[in-house]
């Protein structure tokens, strides 16, 4: 029973995310459309019209319904623990049939596609054990176009703050016209190579109306956004002022010899949902 509830909760989360973006992203796109003109504006107007019709017609916003990715904060006293992996995988199979989602899990050696968005290490599931008896699940439908421009820079520590900033500007330039801009840019500074990239991806999930609590980092985020947008790549790479809706930074302590900088981008179709589950399996959708 509790298993069934959790599963249907996750299917519900995936379905909602397919048809809409969270309000903070929608509002940022509307603001950008007001500020732009010409081709940039017409691209943003097409995006807004698409979002409107996706909701009305219950059709996926984008045909790339992404790699199903889950960040789970699992209460140590929540009744389901190791079983959560199977439940999420089952929910992914069901949502793939129901929505329907595009089958995006492919064997890299044989190109075989199982057709249900599952496979080796798919869905992607990150679990953190936290105090308490509840579970919070964040679902991200990560498109291939924006994932393909993920970048890792293993800088020499003498590169310092300037080097970090240059790496992020370079990452945006290298991504160029490819990741379906406007994008949310996540930056992970420090840690090891894997941690930098993971933090970068997590940083893209921070709501656009939530400020970085660290005043210095907030200033760096603003500066990078302004510099990156001044390159004029614009929506869809056809020119304009809005390449980045935001730059978000996360960080970790690092080895003295290393300065990893991970950069992850989330396309404007930032499809994510968040739900809280009670110990009896009842759930409340928090986003969208």
């Amino acid at each position: 029973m509790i298993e069934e509830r959790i599963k249907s909760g996750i299917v519900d989360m995936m379905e909602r995310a397919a048809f809409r973006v969270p309000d903070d992203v929608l509002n940022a796109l509307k603001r950008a459309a007001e500020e732009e003109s010409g081709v940039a504006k017409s691209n943003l107007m097409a995006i807004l019209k698409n979002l409107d019709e996706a909701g009305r017609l219950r059709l996926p916003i984008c045909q790339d319904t992404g790699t199903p990715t889950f960040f789970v904060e699992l209460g140590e006293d929540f009744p389901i623990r190791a079983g959560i992996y199977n439940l999420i995988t089952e929910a992914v199979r069901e949502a793939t049939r129901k929505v329907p989602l595009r089958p995006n899990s492919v064997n890299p050696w044989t190109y075989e596609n199982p057709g249900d968005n599952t496979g080796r290490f798919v869905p992607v599931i990150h679990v953190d054990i936290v105090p308490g008896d509840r579970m919070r699940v964040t679902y991200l439908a990560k498109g291939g176009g924006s994932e393909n421009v993920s970048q890792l820079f293993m800088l020499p520590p003498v590169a310092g703050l300037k080097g970090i900033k240059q790496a992020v500007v370079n990452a945006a330039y290298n991504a160029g016209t490819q990741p379906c801009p406007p994008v949310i840019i996540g930056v992970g500074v420090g840690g090891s190579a894997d941690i930098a990239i993971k933090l970068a991806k997590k940083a893209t999930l921070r709501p656009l109306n939530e400020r970085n609590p660290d005043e210095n980092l907030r200033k760096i985020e603003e500066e990078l956004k302004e510099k990156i947008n001044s390159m004029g790549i614009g929506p869809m790479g056809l020119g304009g002022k809005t390449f980045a809706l935001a730059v978000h930074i996360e960080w970790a302590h690092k080895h003295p010899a290393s300065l990893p900088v991970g950069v992850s981008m989330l396309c404007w179709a930032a499809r994510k949902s968040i739900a809280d589950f009670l110990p009896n399996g009842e759930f409340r959708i928090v986003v969208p």
Partner: protein
Amino acid sequence: MEYYIKTPISEEEVRKLEAGDVVYISGKIITGRDQVHRRALEFYKEGKPLPVDLRGMAIYHCGPIAEKKGDEWRIVGFGPTTSARMESVEADFLRAFGVRLVIGKGGMFERTTQAMKELGAAYLAHPGGVSVLATKSVKRVLEVHWLDLGIPEAMWVVEVENFGPTMVAIDSHGRNLFMEVMKRAESRRKEIFEELK
């Protein structure tokens, strides 16, 4: 200029298109992304015919969402994918099969631009992620080939009506709007590197 084009189209028609023009397409378009390009060029090398004649056609960089209801396929998602992935093979593809229009998102580079100029072809940019508007232009699925590659990678032959708006981003006269934008970005990036502290 704004054009309403019906496929197949002639070289003369495609030569009229200029970078920045807006184009709506009706008629048959054929999806082809990574694996269609790979397999089609293998067929060409081996002298085997493709299941569909691509002369004068529009090839669409798209991996759709499709579901089968009874005997009929229904398209649920029909937005463009990143064209840059096909850059290394598109010039050969155009040359081999006589395609006149390539539709996708994010643009293509030097080699494709040169081939389009030489052969008479154009690249149309559809806004990325804007899948619902594209889906609404689909009249029906006419054929599907190579389904063994999976739904996104198969070759879908689809009848559309007023598919668009797309923008001519690479024309047959050597202009490439994406490369123009990135050239400006490159010089601005150099300035930014000086400004950063």
